[in-house]
């Protein structure tokens, strides 16, 4: 088995090939954040709509490798419907997980758990993180 199989899990490939919530909307009620990865050219935009302290919708678009694009899709399915506070917690947990920092294992990251394999590929951690960082930034903007 090639090392890389631990990274390219089925869940990831599924989100890559059938991305959920993809495509941006021309709608001012969404908060937008655009992040690029200078090391490899990945380029992701996240749109978040918050209503009454809840993440009502998350959209994404951009170009990049499968890890980057799929993680945007996974993110969108995980946080939609959660409260802003929960969404923040999930995001922090996810980022800590892929960066090999301590994280709360009792929180169910669902599909996003598949990205744990990325810890073995430090050069790809950024790919797996930029969509989430962009999402985090939209929450921050919303709270300002």
């Amino acid at each position: 088995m090639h090392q890389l199989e631990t990274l390219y899990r089925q869940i990831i490939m599924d989100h890559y090939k059938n991305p959920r919530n993809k495509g941006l909307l021309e709608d001012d009620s969404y908060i937008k954040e655009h992040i690029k990865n200078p090391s490899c050219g990945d380029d992701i935009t996240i749109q978040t709509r918050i209503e009454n302290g809840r993440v009502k919708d998350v959209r994404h678009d951009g170009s990049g490798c499968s890890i980057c694009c799929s993680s945007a899709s996974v993110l969108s399915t995980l946080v939609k419907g959660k409260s802003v506070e929960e969404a923040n917690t999930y995001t922090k947990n996810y980022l800590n997980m892929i960066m090999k920092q301590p994280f709360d294992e009792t929180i169910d990251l669902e599909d996003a758990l598949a990205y744990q394999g990325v810890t073995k590929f430090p050069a790809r951690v950024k790919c797996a993180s930029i969509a989430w960082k962009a999402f985090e930034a939209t929450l921050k903007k919303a709270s300002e």
Partner: protein
Amino acid sequence: MMQGRKKDFPILNKQPLVYLDTAASSLTPNAVINKLNEYYKDYPVNVHRGVYKLSYQATEAYHAARQTIADFINASFDEVIFTRGASSALNLVALSYGEQYINAGDEIIVSELEHHSHILPWQQIAKRKNAKLVYIPLSKEGRITVEAFQSVLSNRTKVVALTYVSNVMGYITPIKEIIEIAHQKGAVVSVDAAQAAPHMQLDVKALNCDFLAFSAHKMFGPTGVGILYGKSALLQAMPPVEYGGDMNDNVDLYDGDWKDAPYKFEAGTPPIAEAIGFAEAVRYIQSVGFDAIIKHEQGLRKQAIEGLEAIDGITVYNKEAETGIINFNLDGVHPHDVVSFFDEDHIALRAGHHCAQLLIKWLKVPATLRASFYIYNDASDIETFIDSAKRARSFFSEIGF
């Protein structure tokens, strides 16, 4: 024949590594590392300014380095400016020559093969000066041809800024002919030789180029240094860009005057160790010889192209290139995904736009993979690379790409 060279590179004796990213940076041989150590251990002091023996020794070594590099490209001592690297050197041409001589309505000829470091400085000058940036239409293969150049050359052409060897396609520009034709119109030609200097003999007199730039780190040398060659008369007539220690003669309260070139372009403490190490890298190249380098790289290239062509679902974008650069993709797989596969097989190659977005856009792909060769690669490296490419192709097909 070149196999013996692997032993000169510490990293190749430390870990399994097939290094195919020379076009980004070459590996560093012991000779250069030792030379850097010599400076830091034996005469680690400033140049020009001291009149004690150690400083004299450092100054002589720094001077000798400039002479070595001048000789390497058949230039004179005064025509070689040490810079931070090729990017800085190419910017110097735009910021000094361009700033001084480009006027509204003038035309600057460039190409989509240019590295960002040779296109962005001229874009900016064109914008600031209301000059026109004119692109040479590339051939179907993606080449700069003399004919296409002639089709855009005009009486308004003031500067021609072209790469000698494309860092993505590996094509050699017919630069000598272009320079001759450009000069007939009175245009000056700036040559980006970052990918040429490591792999072929340069002769600035024979080329008759006006400016030419390259970096040490792509040709066995240290980081932090490169050179700009400029014709003496042009350099003398150009204003400095940076001002400060060592580049001036007299300084008064409200004005100063400058030394002659090259010094007027070297403000402050120069990259001393780096220049000395650069000269050692040049000697290392000379000890191998360009004939041997070219023959070796051609052989590896042929082997690699044949190997890749035998694999279904791989597209090579520059099959007919003359130099050791291969630009390709696994169909339907983003190159950043592929590169991790190679990485796990201890093969280092590059994925992305290679600082040449215009060409990537011209190719109409999001990004590409690039393998590039140098003398420390051998046939077994290429076998490993081809074998890995095969397995990568199957792997990505199987998981559904």
